[in-house]
């Protein structure tokens, strides 16, 4: 499974990568982008199976990236998991309305990450089976 990890802090990208590897995802298939703009370019250039993105980033924020993904016919079905320090109601609602698949507030644990990922894949499998 090819995953794109988007965060402006290199530490956080590395932590998310580390956790994903711990959860059994293949390290070489995980790629990184340092803002929404670069992420979108990478997503358009090659096919990914999932995006894990921060909210607060320069150039293009996580919510803008999410909206851009949902607006792009080729990308609109891509699962997006937000991992962010933004925990106010309005922002969580905005992410939900923009079509986010999961929302994790930092700091988080590996257990939380696993739960959210499992939930995303369960829902995808269910919608795939019913389609």
């Amino acid at each position, binding site marked *: 499974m090819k995953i794109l990890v988007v965060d402006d802090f*290199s530490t956080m990208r590395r932590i998310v990568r580390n956790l994903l590897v711990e959860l059994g995802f293949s390290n070489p298939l995980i790629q990184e982008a340092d803002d929404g703009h670069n992420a979108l370019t990478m997503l358009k250039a090659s096919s990914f199976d999932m995006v894990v993105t921060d909210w607060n980033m320069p150039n293009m924020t996580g919510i803008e990236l999410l909206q851009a993904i949902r607006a792009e016919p080729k990308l609109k079905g891509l699962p997006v998991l937000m991992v962010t320090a933004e925990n106010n109601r309005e922002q969580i609602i905005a992410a939900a309305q923009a079509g986010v698949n999961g929302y994790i507030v930092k*700091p988080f644990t590996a257990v939380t990450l696993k739960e959210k990922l499992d939930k995303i894949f369960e829902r995808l499998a269910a919608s795939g089976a019913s389609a």
Partner: protein
Amino acid sequence: MNAPVTATVAESLPPEVLALLNTQDGTAFEQALDVMVRQREQHLFRALGVLARDLHGAVSRLGSDLANEGVPDSMTDARNYLAEVLEMSSKAAHRSLDFVDRMRPEAEALANNATAVLDFNSSETDPAAVLARQAKVFANACGEGLNDMVLVQSWQDLAGQRVKKVVAFIESVESSLLELVRLTGALAGREAPVEVAKVSSQDEVDRLLSEFGF
């Protein structure tokens, strides 16, 4: 048109108002009124001028106080220090993650070796088997500890975001101060060094502030 003012009222009025009220033709009345309004305006402007000069002096002192407070020497230094904090904490987090990357395979290897020994010798009393059992417990505990250590590094990201907000705040204080200096300078009758325009880059801000002696 104007009725003569009675003697009792006239006593309580300043002479220029009395003269104004006793003016007979319209043009002369308007001229006298203009003179009076202009006099009042001049008083007001003089008072405003004094006020603006005082304000300019106070703002300039505030600016130089900020520049001479010692450590940090100036707002630019304060920003640089915060950028260093960001870099150092990031470096520390990466070093910790390097350590985890190095130790995780070691812990896994120890656990595997201990399992191999126990497969061969699972005695409850033989020292080699006892040690292997302890080594396995230790290796597994290390693995969990290393996972926790990875997660704890995410505080660097959270702290870094706060630091970035403080940097943005300092920038806004700095540009507000600059605007205040320019505004009070103009009000106090000093020539503004640059036409009022948006200052975009940090260099421009620093240059402008230095022109005001900051």
